[in-house]
């Protein structure tokens, strides 16, 4: 187990190991990105669109994304809906129960910033990124199921930049969408020659 944990680092430090590492990374990222099981953290209205996305018309399964309401089986947590102060510890705890590698999609304005509940309310957490590292933000109140599917495709692009070597795993930097329906967190070094 310990050897597996150190495999990435060992490969990275040895001469020529980087070639093997990138090949292993490519395989790992391909398999991770193509079967993203989703933990549907649906709390409010967006949960309806999350359900709609996985049913007849939109058929999420064709992207390899399957809702599985058990944190230990899932790769990506889709936070769909308003997170209140009372709910936030439960969401955090569920996120901690998910096995690495794991990602978070903030679906809808409430999960991004509190949305319509940003002002004048005493009980709403202003965005799930106050306590979770969010990878993809999907704007909308609620977003259309197509937006959610686009968000998952964006998440694949982020996953494609990952590595099994801890030295190469880059911290997710959280950015809010500047324009368009879907944006995703840029990671430092993304697109740079390494």
């Amino acid at each position, binding site marked *: 187990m310990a050897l597996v944990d150190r495999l990435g680092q060992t490969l990275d430090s040895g001469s020529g190991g980087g070639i093997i590492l990138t090949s292993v990374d490519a395989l790992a990222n391909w398999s991770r990105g193509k079967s993203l099981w989703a933990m549907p953290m649906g709390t409010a*209205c967006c949960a*309806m669109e999350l359900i709609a996305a996985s049913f007849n018309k939109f058929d999420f399964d064709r992207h390899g994304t399957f809702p599985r309401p058990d944190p230990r089986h899932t790769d990506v947590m889709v936070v769909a809906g308003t997170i209140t102060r009372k709910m936030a510890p439960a969401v955090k705890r569920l996120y901690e129960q998910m096995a690495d590698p794991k990602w978070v999609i903030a679906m809808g304005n409430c999960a991004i910033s509190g949305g319509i509940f940003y002002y004048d309310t005493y009980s709403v957490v202003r965005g799930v990124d106050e306590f979770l590292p969010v990878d993809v933000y999907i704007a909308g109140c609620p977003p259309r199921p197509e937006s959610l599917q686009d968000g998952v495709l964006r998440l694949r692009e982020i996953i494609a930049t990952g590595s099994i070597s801890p030295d190469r795993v880059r911290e997710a930097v959280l950015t809010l969408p500047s324009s368009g329906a879907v944006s995703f967190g840029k990671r430092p070094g993304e697109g740079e020659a390494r």
Partner: protein
Amino acid sequence: MSVEIESRECVVRGDGGVVEQLVVNVGPSHPSTHGVCRVIVHLDGEVVTKAEPVIGYLHRGIEKMAENRTYLQVVPLTDRLDYVGSMYANWAYCRALERLAGIRVPERAEYLRVIVCEMQRIASHMMSLGSAAADSGAATMFIYAFDQRERIIELFEELCGARLTYNYVRPGGVSFDVPEGWVETALAFCRTHRAALTEMDRLYFGNVIARDRLKGVGVLSAADAVAWGASGPVARGSGVNFDLRKHDPYSVYPRFDFDVPTGSNGDCYDRARVRLFECYESCRILEQAIAQMEPGPFRTEGLPRLLAPRPGDAYDHIESARGSLGVYLVADGTPRPYRMKVRSPAFCNLALLPMLAEGHMLSDLVVILGSLDPVFGEVDR
């Protein structure tokens, strides 16, 4: 955090046997709790001895927020109350406001409101029937029901541009008139929907496993339903013939010929079946409303953007898919409501859960919860 054991203790039973009493936490994130309901269940073996619902996980303070919004700005907030059926809260709020400010609504707008709310009833019942069926293991039913719901949502999208939070019913009317060809699509939907309902009836209620899971589970007597303030399909499943559309007729409902389906046993089967039959009645109302609707204005012209009703209060209620949904508004002469209170049928119906679940198996708890059809946006507000 889905289901976990909180504590275990040994208790001595009356007959001298020692049993292990488990306290199990279900939720707030659980696939079968229809949102963020948390239930603390006390178990004797697998039998529920006590179930305590814990609510408030979606308390967003909408009633308080309304005090800082102008009267028109509150309408989008009411969308987020009952997110499975947004049109109802829109309408209940607008009715209370129209009563408070003395706004007259054109007849075409009333017909449009009836049409969208009956469609919303079908959409909401499809969600309820589908998810309740999925809880009892019949996932196929969910797919059939969701197909029907999706068709209505497409119609709503064509009408007002939104799939879920419509903001369609506005004070003094509705936001848009029907687009060209919409009425024909809606009538065509009614025809296909009846066939789909019959198919679903055979598929789910004709299934012997589904019947075994639902019949005799969570029996609510008519007297209890009245005493606990249950309304909607939950009360009607117990044989309480109470429907605000018939017994306190509002809008143009007296002009339609429709029946109020009621159950007789008050178990989960009757509650679910009442929802299915209500969809047939909604189709009837839809067809009559579309036939009777005359061309004309769909909203009151010349309504000020900043409404400031004279000090006073008003209460109005409508029959939502979950029961009688009421909105109480207090005005103090300023452009903002002094107080808004929502009488939520989902909250009153959820209060029945401890009584209904007692003595049933843990797996029946989710079926009972599904048959009560709570929506937590409305329970917690």
